Every structure is written in structure tokens, then in C-alpha cells.
């Protein structure tokens, strides 16, 4: 088995008396889509934020490409290749699509402290940005202000920004949320194409999408990892059926 790109090692984080994430160990391997599911309040968001660096763990480690990044901030982890989308789309609304993605190119390819060249005329920035826009399926929308995009397009813009980082892994927090059936299918196809390029840790509520896309599924409940395996194994798992799928069915 290839070296995992991401490994969460006995991660714990509490808020007051609540153990939001409790000794979770999780791996993301090259070439896979690894889904993280669980009922509301299971600790999925906290786990994502621990991995991204927005929250510091009480105990445990985050290993990115084999390196302990537990003490690095969000920006450092992003530059190491951690691309991320948010549960509520997070973009710069006044910027055009191209400006948003160029910003991500800027982040990954060093140097914010250029004062002279006009960024939008700098082919070293706009070239890779246009490529990422095309990869995310937003070709021809480059000059549209982000605030004017549809919900689904804004999701794609976030993915384009993550791709512009030349990511080693993607952390996608409920990308299908609020998408129509068609939009979700389109986004699913996009994620499926991306898997060969970059492994994805996918937090998702849409069970059809999870089982269709994922190579492996991990289930979180009350902060603990209660099961991890292929889609078929998870569907058959009694614990999982009780705490999660059972409720839904």
C-alpha cells in the first residue's frame, strides 16, 4: 500500500465538556476518494478543521505527506498542498472568477510581495488559473463576478481555487449540499475525474453520492470513528446501520 498523503493520528479535540473529536485515526491514500459520514454533530466539521489547521488538537497529530503539521497554520498547510472547500461556499465575492483563482495561484506559487506587475496581465498567474477554471468546468465564466455565480458554480469555483494550489489532497466539506439532482450528478462526475489526479477526503450527507464515488467510507458518531471500510462493508455494518443509516432509512 502506498504511503498515505494524509494521516490523522489519534486526534482529539474537546469544547468544554464535549468531546467533539475523540481519538480519531484516519488515512487518505493516493488515488482514492475517502468519504467521511456521520449524523449531525458527529464531529465531522471539527475533524476537517483540525486537518486544515483552523483548530488545534488537544492531543494527537496530523501528518501531511509524512510530515507532522500539527503546529503549522492554515496557510502553511495550504502551501504544502492541502486544498479545501467549505461547507458554506467561501470565495471573494467582489472578485471575478479569474481573480479568485489567480489568488490561489499566487498562494501556491510564492510571493505576495510583488508591488509592480499588474497581476491580471501576468501570464504566470492567469495561465494556471485558466487551466484550473477549465478543469473545474467553469470555462467561459472567468470574467463573471463571484457574487453573480449560481450556487453550483460557486462550488465549482471553490474547487477551481483548490486545484490552482496544485494540491496533493483535497478536503471537500459537503460539496453536494444544496445542489439539485442534476448539479450533484455533474459535480459527482467532476470529482470522479479528479480522483486519479488528487486524492479526496469527502464529507458528504448525500448517501447516493457517497456510495457511488467513494473507495472507502469512514463513519463518525459522537466524535468517535465507529467503522471504516468499503461502501459494501459499511452498508453491512450493524453499528453503522443502528446509529446512522437506520435513522435515514
Amino acid at each position: 500500500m502506498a504511503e498515505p498523503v494524509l494521516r490523522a493520528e489519534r486526534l482529539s479535540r474537546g469544547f468544554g465538556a464535549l468531546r467533539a473529536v475523540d481519538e480519531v485515526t484516519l488515512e487518505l491514500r493516493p488515488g482514492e476518494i475517502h468519504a467521511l459520514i456521520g449524523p449531525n454533530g458527529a464531529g465531522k466539521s471539527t475533524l476537517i478543521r483540525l486537518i486544515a489547521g483552523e483548530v488545534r488538537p488537544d492531543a494527537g497529530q496530523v501528518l501531511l505527506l509524512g510530515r507532522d503539521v500539527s503546529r503549522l497554520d492554515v496557510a502553511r498547510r495550504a502551501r504544502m498542498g492541502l486544498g479545501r472547500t467549505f461547507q458554506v461556499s467561501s470565495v471573494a465575492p467582489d472578485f471575478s472568477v479569474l481573480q479568485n483563482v489567480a489568488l490561489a495561484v499566487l498562494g501556491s506559487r510564492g510571493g505576495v510581495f510583488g508591488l509592480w506587475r499588474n497581476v491580471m496581465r501576468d501570464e504566470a498567474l492567469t495561465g494556471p488559473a485558466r487551466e484550473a477554471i477549465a478543469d473545474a468546468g467553469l470555462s467561459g465564466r472567468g470574467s463573471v463576478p463571484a457574487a453573480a455565480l449560481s450556487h453550483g458554480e460557486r462550488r465549482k469555483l471553490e474547487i477551481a481555487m483548490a486545484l490552482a494550489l496544485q494540491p496533493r489532497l483535497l478536503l471537500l466539506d459537503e460539496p453536494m449540499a444544496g445542489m439539485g439532482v442534476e448539479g450533484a450528478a455533474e459535480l459527482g462526475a467532476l470529482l470522479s475525474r479528479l480522483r486519479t489526479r488528487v486524492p479526496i477526503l469527502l464529507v458528504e450527507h448525500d448517501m447516493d453520492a457517497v456510495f457511488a464515488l467513494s473507495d472507502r467510507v469512514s463513519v463518525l458518531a459522537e466524535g468517535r470513528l465507529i467503522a471504516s471500510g468499503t461502501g459494501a462493508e459499511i452498508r453491512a455494518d450493524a453499528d453503522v446501520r443502528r446509529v446512522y443509516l437506520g435513522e435515514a432509512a
Partner: protein
Amino acid sequence: MTAAAVQAPARRWSREARVNTALSLGLLAVPLLAMAAGEPFWVTLATRAAILALAGVGLNLALGYGGLVSFGHAAFFGLGGYAAGVLASHGMSGRPIVTWPLEIGGTTQMLAIWPVAVAAAALGALVIGALSLRTTGVFFIMITLAFGQMAFYFMVSWPAYGGEDGLPTYVRSRFPGVNTMAPLQFFAIAYGWLMLALWLSWRIAGSRLGLALQAARQNRQRLAAVGIRPKSVLLGAFVLSGALTGLAGALYTDLNRFVSPAMLSWQTSGELLVLVILGGVGRLFGPVAGAMLFIALEHLLGGISDYWQFFLGAMLLMVVLFARGGIMGALAGRDG
């Protein structure tokens, strides 16, 4: 608001560029017409407007592009002002400023004063910015205000340079080939700096730093997630902002041939905020329009009523409630 600032300026050239040109020429025309009409006082007013606009261009970098509501920019204005005043008074008296470990004297050459004023203000902005940027929102406003007040009371209670009475410099510092005491020639220096600062600000807005800075205003979380530390970007802009405002302070001391703690007071910080907001936050020429209106109101309404600031406040209220783009928004359309 400022999306176009980082685009190639082709699309919006027409209208905003015409307004900008009109403002530049208008500010230039006032002192020329005033001299022709034998009213040198109007030259002084235009010079004041140019210097306040320069300070505003500095503030606009932090406030307009970075979204940092600094209520302490008077500290940088005053730092530049006192740097100029202290150097000039020592330059005239011949007394050294410090004698140990090495002797440093004053100077009355603007070319030597400006770099010192800019460096002092930039250093001040680096320290104040590094501490203030640990906070956001209303706390940032309050902590910058607190630093501004610290600078104010420091100068009030430091007797060596006049304390609360201020420090007169009697004559303006010198500039090669220019008679700085001639109103029109001193105006030319202030106006030249204003134009240079506007050009610089335009370049910065369209640069890598400008893109990241405007992103920091809109969404710090997103900026960090693409690998750029918002605080570093904002601190860089805050330092540039303070440096430009400090340069304006040095010119202001020369204009008045006097520097006092009033330059450091919170009212000065407030006036700078007001003129940028009146003119149009985040618009390149917003501070120019704002400063011209501010000075005009101060002079015209100030002659009629002591309560002219009541009318200024009313106008500010109108801008904040109904015309977010300020004067520039009204003249050149909403999207810079």
C-alpha cells in the same frame, strides 16, 4: 467595490478616468486662478487639500483596499510631522539631536527630511500594526485609537519639543531649485507628491499585494485557505499606508511652519476617515475628492457658522446611508 482596480484598467477607463483627470486638473487650477486673482490664501487652501488628500491616499490603502478601519492614522501623520519639525528646528539652531553614541544633527533639506519622516511613520505603523492586527472589527478600531492617543499624550507631555504648545519652525525647509516660501512653488511640491502617491497606489492596487489585500478585506478565511497569511498582507499594507500618511505629515509641518500635538489628536484621525469615506472608500481618487470637499466646506461653511462640522456630519450620514461610493460613486458610477 474595487474589483476593477485589479483588472486591466481598460473596461472602466472612460468614466472614472475622466473624473480622475477632472479632479487632478481642478485641484491644479485653484492655486493658478487664485494667483491670477491675487488671492494667495486660496493657494494655501489648495495646498492643504493636496496634503490631506495625500494622507488620505495613505489611509485608503489600509481602509479602502484592506478594509482596516484605522482610527489611529493621526499617529503616523504626527510622526511624520514631528520628524520634519524636529529635524528642521535642529537644522536651524545647529544643535545636534543626539550626541551619543554618534552625533546626529538636524537638517533643513526636504530631501533629507522626507526619508526620515517616512521611515519613522513606517516603523510606527509596523509596531502599531503588528499589535493591532491581532484583533479585528470594532476592537481593531479601538486599539488603533488607543495607540493614537498614546502618541498624542506622549508629545503633549514631552517638553523638549514644545509639549502641548507645539514646535514652531518659522521657515519652510528647503528644496533644491525651489523657493519653498513662495505659495505656488510649495503647492507644486505637495501636488507632485500627491500625483506620485496616486500612481503608486494605483500600481499597488493592481499588483500581487493588491490582489491579496483586497481578498483579505472580503474573506480572510478564504485567503488563508489558498496559502496566504492574511495578517502578513494586511501588515504590509498598513506599513505602506502609514508611510504615505507620514510623508503627508512632514509636508503639513512645512505648510504651517509649525507642528503641534493637535496633528496627533483623535480628531485628526477622524477627519482623515471622514474625507476618505466622503470621497469614496477604496476608490483611487476618493481621498482627493474628499479632501477638496472637506477643505471647501471648512472654509465656506466655517465662515458662515462655527458649527460647520454639523453640516459635515449630516453629509457623512447621507453618504453612509444612501451613497456608499461617496463622491466618486456619485460621479463615476458604483464599480470603480
